[in-house]
């Protein structure tokens, strides 16, 4: 097992294997994710990086044919324990998806939804503050402060994605999972989100799946390279990109595979 930083380990996966029906999508993944750092998962399409990400908040549970073996510890607690409620887990682990997916409701309601269903706030004022605060943290507040009642879907793609981030951090999760959050965005919107990720890493543990190696290099401190369901290499981002230990990693980052 590779430990790359002196930081506390937030998430630890032990021999995680995932099957879709008979097909093995992930083969015995052991990976440690440091607290309040950005870890990026890279690899060619179909390598299992998104599958692994979705194991971390048990989103794969919603797929009927999906079967998961192994253990994942978050703060030394196994999230695949039988009596653990995945709903509770997902409240503690936020997720941002590939395609911005705001609810077809107002900007305010989008952010307020999480706090409302979990009963985090006690009063209307508290909710207003929380929504404002979350939008600020997501760097969106100044752009939307005058139109909080307009539908979230009326925003631009990059704004929608930041709205989704605001929605995720409104329930103050410990970890934020991002599944290719910039793949549907233009370079300028991408740059804004990347800056935001840097900012968020001060308070949250972030795991990001990305197709772009440059993005991984820019935003993350740790990088894990997946290939065909296997974790090939994990290490400090600069080390992975400057002197990869595995030949496959080198082939991928130099563009020979993937």
């Amino acid at each position, binding site marked *: 097992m590779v430990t790359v930083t002196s930081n506390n380990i937030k998430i630890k996966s032990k021999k995680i294997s995932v099957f879709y029906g008979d097909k093995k999508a992930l083969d015995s993944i052991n990976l440690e994710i440091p607290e309040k750092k950005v870890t990026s998962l890279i690899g060619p399409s179909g390598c299992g990086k998104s599958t692994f990400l979705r194991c971390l*908040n048990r*989103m794969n549970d*919603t797929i*009927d044919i999906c079967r998961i073996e192994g253990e994942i510890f978050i703060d030394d607690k196994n999230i695949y324990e039988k009596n653990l409620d995945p*709903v*509770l*887990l*997902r*409240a*503690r682990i*936020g*997720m941002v*998806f590939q*395609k911005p*997916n*705001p*609810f*077809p409701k107002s900007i305010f309601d989008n952010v307020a*939804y*999480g706090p409302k*269903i*979990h009963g985090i706030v006690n009063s209307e004022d508290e909710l207003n503050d929380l929504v404002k605060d979350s939008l600020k943290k997501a760097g969106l507040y100044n752009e939307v402060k005058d139109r909080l009642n307009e539908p979230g*879907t009326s925003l631009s793609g990059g704004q929608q994605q930041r709205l*989704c981030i605001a*929605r*995720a951090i409104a*329930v103050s999760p410990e970890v934020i999972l991002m599944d290719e959050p910039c793949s549907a965005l233009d370079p300028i919107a991408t740059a804004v989100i990347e800056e935001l990720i840097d900012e968020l890493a001060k308070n949250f543990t972030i795991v990001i799946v990305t197709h772009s190696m440059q993005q991984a290099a820019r935003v993350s401190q740790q990088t894990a390279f997946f290939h065909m369901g296997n974790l090939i290499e994990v290490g400090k981002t600069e080390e992975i990109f400057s002197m990869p230990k595995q030949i496959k990693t080198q082939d991928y980052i130099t563009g020979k595979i993937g």
Partner: protein
Amino acid sequence: MTNITEKIKLSLSKRQRSEKRFKFLGFIGISFAILFLIIILYSIFSQGQSAFKSTYIELNIFFDEKIIDVEGKRDIEDIKFANFRKIITNSLDNYFPEVEKREEKRKLHEFISSSEEKNLMNLVLSNQELIGKSKQLWLLASSTIDVIHKNPEMERIVESDRLVDDLELSWFKTFKENGNLKFGFNKNFFSKADSTEPEQAGVLGSMLGSFFTLLITLILSFPIAVAAGVFLEELAPKNRFTDFIEVNINNLAAVPSIIFGLLGLAIFLNVMHLPRSAPIVGGMVLALMTLPTIIIATRASLKAVPPSIREAAIGLGATKFQTVNHHVLPLSMPGILTGTIIGMSQALGESAPLLMIGMVAFIVDIPGSFTDSATVLPVQIYLWKSTAARGFLELTAAGVMVLLTFLILMNGLAVFVRQKFEKKW
């Protein structure tokens, strides 16, 4: 290179020809459909529009005290049981003093609809001053006269083929020439239930019957079907048992509706002993028939909600039920409502299953509740169609017009609901 271009050009003209051919066939198909639609609408409207007016005859009515109030006490009960028929026949006799034969008088007396007796009684009850006085009044003519009035060409056909004989026709002409004959709005059509006399028959009874029936159908089928659809689509485990149920629901949608009527007859009437001919049973039967339609519409519109919305909610820690209830269901509501309205208009036009549970009975009273005997619009149309009297012909067409109006309104509502509440994401 040029060779390839030539080949493409050659195949291109062929492809364009086939496209043109297809467009042409499509155009012909649509034209036929529109043509037949126009024909059917024209035949219905041309036959039915005359049902909205009826013939009135002006008579000088003498409210004879000797008939209305023999004892002169102005007792309401006496007036109620007075022989108002006699009042009408007297004034008819005065109009044609030359008619003396008993048989001929009988024919003359049938010129005025029997419903006017009650109207005259109400008139006297509301204004007792009239007793002992005369008044010019327009009275509703009987259906035979109405038919003659509406179809002037009938005057020219030979007596034996005509509804009325020469004598009656001459009286009719006399009324007409004296200006004592006019068309008025057919109030009975919208204020009465069925009757043996065409001029007294109306659609209100069957409209209310349809209303009560559909209300029961909606109350029963909508919540059950939506709940079933949501459960099957979102919450139920996918296994053989749910697959089996799904197949059966789809099959149920294709079951001939009369089967549901048989079921209603066997279970609701014979086992549960619910009232015969009642909207409550009709509604229950139609609810069974509508359930699969709404379930299928519900599932289809739930499926159409993009998975990203579900993922967003589940990713935030919403439970499956919250995800469905807060996001998926509201988004699919337009589709569900559209399906429901379509199902309801199907139910509105349904007659076969209702025949089985006795809603085909001849009912003169306007239903006031779910358990009163009633009939529904399509059955009423069927009843009128199968009645021999000439006057029912136009009533049939007019009934179809009323039914079509409601169907168009409901379908319009479905379109409106879909456009108004459909959210974009």
